[in-house]
């Protein structure tokens, strides 16, 4: 699934936040050390994700182009909704659970 920010980009944002804003405020030596270890772990995740092939979103782009042209056959909404649901199960599963 092609989502922005991608998992890599989210990891990067967390690294910047922890390394740039939190680390400098830590005075406890043990916490500082563990934060550096955690940042290193996130770095591993980031590089591992980076090595994965990029997602192919050509099908989605084609669907979007068709809708823009007014080509919306029956069943389009159902298809689109289940796609959003799949994204939500990753981005915000509790939102789906609470939705009535």
């Amino acid at each position, binding site marked *: 699934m*092609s*989502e*922005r*920010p991608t998992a890599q*980009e*989210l990891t990067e*944002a*967390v690294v*910047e*936040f922890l390394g740039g804003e939190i680390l400098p405020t830590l005075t406890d030596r043990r916490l500082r050390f563990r934060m550096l270890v955690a940042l290193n772990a996130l770095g591993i995740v980031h590089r591992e994700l980076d090595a994965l092939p990029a997602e192919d*979103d050509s099908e*989605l*782009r084609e*669907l*979007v182009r068709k*809708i*823009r042209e*007014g080509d*919306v056959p029956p069943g*389009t*909404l159902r298809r*689109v*909704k289940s*796609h*959003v*649901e799949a*994204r*939500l199960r990753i*981005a*915000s599963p509790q*939102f*789906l659970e*609470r*939705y*009535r």
Partner: protein
Amino acid sequence: MKDAFQAGLSELLGREVEITEPVLLAGGASKEAWAVDADGERLLVRRAAATLIHHRTLTLAQEYAVIEAAFEAGVKVPRPYGYIADLAGREAFVMERLEGETIGRRIVQMDELAAARGRLPVQLAEELAKIHAIPAERLPFLPDARLERRGEDLDEVGEPHPAIELGLWWLRKNRPPERPRVVNHGDYRIGNVVVDREGLVGVLDWEFARLDDPVRDLAFGMVRAWRFGVAEKRLGGIGDAGPFVERYNELTGLDVRPEELDYWELAGNVAWAIGTLTQAQRHLSGLDRSVELATLGRLSAEVEYEICHLLEQANA
């Protein structure tokens, strides 16, 4: 910073003022918010941040002019004190610092504000009626909102989002008869108002002001994201739409129909879905690196789910 504020505020108020140490408040990525007292008067200074939130927003000088116009029209807004072209290198405007709650989740949930929630729907309708009566010629710089612009905004993001696209398609197909355009607040919802135990204290955040259909403003506060977890209360998690719309109709002489509200609620969701994406773009483009903005990009899925739900209800 204190010296710059001291000089700027003294010049603005036309006298040497004693000020407290300015305190930078949290929140507000496009504009800084500084709390400062000058000779005991509670002031809030909005000062430009390094970047703009969105290229469709007003400049600080324009936003200040809108607040002035609203104040003159008798809308509950912070008293405007003036515009400062150069406050430590950036433009700023000064207004009264109102007392009360602004955090949406608290307004919707706090026990102490239960009575206020009872009054808010009618109060919000009364202020909106006054806002929509502000003469548009007083604010010639206001942009004219068009649905087509939303598609352009989405194209600028450059990611495929079929749910948003489907929402735009339905909105193009089902436009209600156009109403005469009025001055819209543009972001009229819980989270952009100050509330105390008595109810509405003031309307904030005017940078999205524009000319638009009056029902657009009326329905924006019904967008699910602005119900702050109390989804069953359609008006911003505080109440039903009924009393709010009835009072608005009574004051304006309009007869807003339920299907118009539905249309503009969907339009509000589409606008906010695109909004989350453009905010995330600020992070991704390097304009304003922030983990909050980055995460907002993924929140789009929640809004898109609501768009699908509303489209189902509309039998699209």
